[in-house]
């Protein structure tokens, strides 16, 4: 509240009026201590230059400026996930079939945005996504492998040419800073070509030999 100059006209033994006390009380009530009500609350200025309470948020959320750029608010829960494939998935690819990799076990899913082998973005923002996929029982005639992180806005690819029979087992890793909009999805695929059949296995084990992880860049 704005203060006015002291009333020097008041005489010695001036009797303080109710209006004086109310003004003082009003000023005290406009203090941060008077506004907050719980541990972790913070106070911020309103358009009228008064104080308003911003209640403490929930874990893994940070204050941010609102869309109108008029106040602070708590943003969405930070996305962070790690999921892996726990069991071998046989007969997935080898003769050109594109297999969407199964991640049936979640280790971290902070914002509950990973389900059915896919990450679904909640907040438009760059995200870091990483995949680590092991394929086994690669058919002897296989000559190429292609691994992707497929997001709604772009496909991130790792392609490998090889001499037939070079690998029986192969592990590929791929990591990118990706552009995602709220509502976008991200999945992982693998395609092996040149083999006599789609007989390759996508490995699964609790040692995370086939895993998918990601987090929002704050």
């Amino acid at each position, binding site marked *: 509240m704005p203060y006015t100059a002291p009333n020097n006209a008041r005489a010695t033994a001036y009797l303080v009026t109710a209006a004086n006390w109310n003004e003082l009380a009003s000023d005290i009530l406009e203090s941060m201590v008077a506004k907050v009500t719980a541990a972790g609350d913070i106070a911020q200025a309103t358009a009228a230059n008064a104080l308003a309470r911003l209640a403490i948020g929930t874990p893994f959320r940070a204050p941010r400026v609102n869309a109108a750029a008029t106040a602070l608010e708590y943003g969405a829960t930070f996305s962070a996930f790690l999921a892996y494939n726990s069991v071998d998935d046989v007969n997935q690819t080898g003769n050109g079939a594109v297999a969407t990799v199964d991640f049936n076990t979640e280790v971290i899913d902070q914002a509950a945005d990973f389900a059915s082998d896919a990450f679904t973005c909640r907040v438009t923002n760059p995200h870091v996504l990483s995949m680590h996929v092991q394929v086994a029982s690669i058919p002897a005639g296989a000559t190429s492998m292609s691994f992707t992180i497929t997001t*709604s806005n772009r496909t991130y690819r790792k392609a490998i040419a090889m001499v037939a029979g070079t690998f029986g087992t192969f592990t590929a890793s791929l990591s990118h800073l990706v552009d995602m909009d709220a*509502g976008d999805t991200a999945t992982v695929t693998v395609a092996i070509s040149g083999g006599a059949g789609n007989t390759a296995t996508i490995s699964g084990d609790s040692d995370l030999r086939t895993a998918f992880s990601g987090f929002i860049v704050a």
Partner: protein
Amino acid sequence: MALTTEQREVLAHVVVDPDAWFSHAVATFGAEKAAEFLEAKVARWGPDYEVKKAAGGYKDRAARQAEEDAAAAAKLAAEVAALAEQQAARVADIALVLDVMPTRATKDALARLITGQSA
């Protein structure tokens, strides 16, 4: 809620399947939030769509992705062919070396000549 023509066009500018994108958003976040996300995505990508469309020869994301996939497949096929060629050349080189390598009996005879030993 169905996509408007404009929303579908702008969405198709950035995603391969606009209807699948929106259906997934509705199923995951509910109709209200999905509509909010759709509006934000259209607002974000609309200007880029207009610019690219006005430039002529416009292709939506599905068409661009198909081209990108085909190009990646062609590049990979070329790499496979080059590798196979290198491998064939390497095998031929090894065969040439094997052809001119002395037999064990020849090597033993040469060794005897060098060392002066008799058979």
